């Protein structure tokens, strides 16, 4: 498929601890921003893809109620799910629907309301995104699986808990600047060892509370368009240059290694190949930092650093805004919070704003290529998407 596909509208609700409303009302917040951004009418939209992680939803088949509430009947709507990377999968589907010529304009909506469960219940639900038959009976949860990756990375390469904490410090540096983020306070390395701070609190060794992102309520919305429509509606369309997606065994027993995510590496390989570029060409990236170790592994899986050398990037501040490869300069999941289904769309929004030069205080200088790395489950679903400007 050689047809160019662009993004002409992006929107995100504030990511908050508790949204005082229902999923349809939460979705409306990002929908309004994306519609205004694109300057289109509802009738311009040919189809919607609605994305979330269903274990949080009381509403079955949420695509129906959301399409109705947004006034998007009778256009087709359907649901897509790959846990935490659901809206990247939605974007992949929208890309193919438009590139194939079936539709001219497709909306991708991601959302999650997580606040209606306790934190322990939430761990249990998310844990069931792993292997419920053979792993969940041992009392597993997402932080513990990622902690096993951190332990393996530390044993193999000598990465330290302080290296991981540095990633949280960077996230907080930019989270303070993001009005849509849940966590907007500064974080210092010293707080991780200060008993008075929650950041050093135990979760699952070697990960501490400060290594983990927070649950949040939020929504995101992307408007994907054919080249013709994109040029007609947008002064500066951002093009989807490469899409990569891969999967890995759910059960840790099926993994060849725990010191990296093979699905992320494979998705990156596909996306770079399709875009005809390499890691060195990326000017700004959003990676799935659900945990600090996830960002560190992303540096290596995306080729920003060699295996085992991710720590050198963060130690040298090369992933800060003025570094060699700025990563998560919107604060990342660690600051924004992680409303599962909305996260991928939020990452894409940040990259689109960067490539348009509209990112404000966090604007990277004249980026040409941006990348989004969005992972579902514990490296179960890998999604890498590359964006570029004309």
């Amino acid at each position, binding site marked *: 498929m050689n047809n160019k596909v662009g993004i002409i509208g992006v929107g995100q609700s504030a990511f908050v601890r508790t949204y005082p409303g229902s999923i349809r009302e939460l979705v409306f917040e990002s929908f309004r921003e994306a519609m205004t951004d694109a300057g289109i009418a509802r009738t311009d939209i040919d189809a919607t893809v609605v994305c979330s992680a269903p274990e949080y939803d009381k509403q079955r088949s949420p695509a129906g109620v959301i399409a109705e509430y947004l006034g998007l009947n009778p256009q087709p709507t359907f649901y897509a799910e790959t846990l935490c990377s659901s809206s990247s999968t939605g974007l992949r589907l929208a890309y193919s629907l438009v590139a194939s010529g079936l539709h001219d304009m497709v909306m991708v909506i991601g959302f999650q309301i997580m606040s209606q469960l306790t934190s322990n219940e939430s*761990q249990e639900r998310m844990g069931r995104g792993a292997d419920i038959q053979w792993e969940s009976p041992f*009392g597993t949860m997402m932080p513990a699986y990622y902690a096993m990756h951190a332990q393996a990375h530390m044993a193999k390469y000598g990465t330290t808990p302080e290296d991981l904490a540095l990633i949280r410090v960077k996230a907080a540096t930019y989270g303070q600047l993001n009005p849509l983020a849940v966590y907007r306070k500064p974080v210092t390395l010293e707080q991780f060892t200060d008993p008075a701070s929650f950041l050093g609190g135990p979760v699952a060794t070697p990960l501490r509370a400060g290594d983990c992102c927070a649950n949040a309520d939020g929504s995101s919305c992307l408007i994907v368009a054919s080249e013709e429509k994109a040029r007609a509606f947008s002064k500066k369309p951002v093009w989807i240059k490469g899409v990569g997606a891969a999967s890995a065994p759910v059960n840790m027993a099926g993994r060849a290694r725990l010191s990296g995510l093979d699905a992320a590496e494979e998705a990156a390989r596909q996306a770079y190949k399709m875009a005809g570029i390499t890691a060195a060409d990326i000017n700004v990236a959003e990676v799935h930092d659900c945990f600090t170790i996830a960002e560190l592994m992303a540096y290596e899986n995306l080729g920003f650093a060699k295996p085992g050398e991710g720590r050198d990037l963060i130690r040298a501040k090369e992933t800060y805004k003025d570094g060699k490869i700025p990563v998560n300069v919107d604060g990342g999941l660690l600051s924004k919070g992680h409303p599962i289904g909305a996260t991928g769309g939020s990452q894409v929004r940040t990259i689109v704003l960067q490539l348009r030069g509209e990112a404000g205080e966090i604007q990277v200088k004249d980026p040409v290529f941006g990348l989004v790395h969005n992972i579902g489950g514990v490296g179960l679903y890998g999604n890498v998407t590359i964006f570029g400007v004309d």
Partner: protein
Amino acid sequence: MAKNELDTRFSEFGTVSFAAVTRVNDFIGNLENGKLTGTRCVKCGKTFFPPRAQCCECLAAEMEWFEVTGEGELVSYSTLQYAPTGFTDEVPYTIALVDYGDYKVFGRIDGSVPQEDLSVGMKLKAAVARTSNGRLTYVFERSQVK
């Protein structure tokens, strides 16, 4: 077992089980007999842990059981000080992945192994055990020093 009655033995597995009916329910019977077992494809010989009833390599659906014996190598582990609903009474506990060469086994390390003694690459062996609420499971223990 009476006709039309479902074999739900898998519901006895682990602190909290999220599955009941599976074609590999003899795994539970084997645990009751003190054996941790995986399956081997009768046709192509591929070994599986966790056990499975069907072979994705050769499409056969005939398996034989083998016992997980000997030492494996600790691939990684994590000690949970925070737990999901259903497990909060058990913290701290340590989950782990152990490599046996042809296959890997995911499970918990026995509470008798001090956390400070754990290190990636150490040798462990699996043993059938009971959870704190008296249900069937298996744990990794330190190999006996000869």
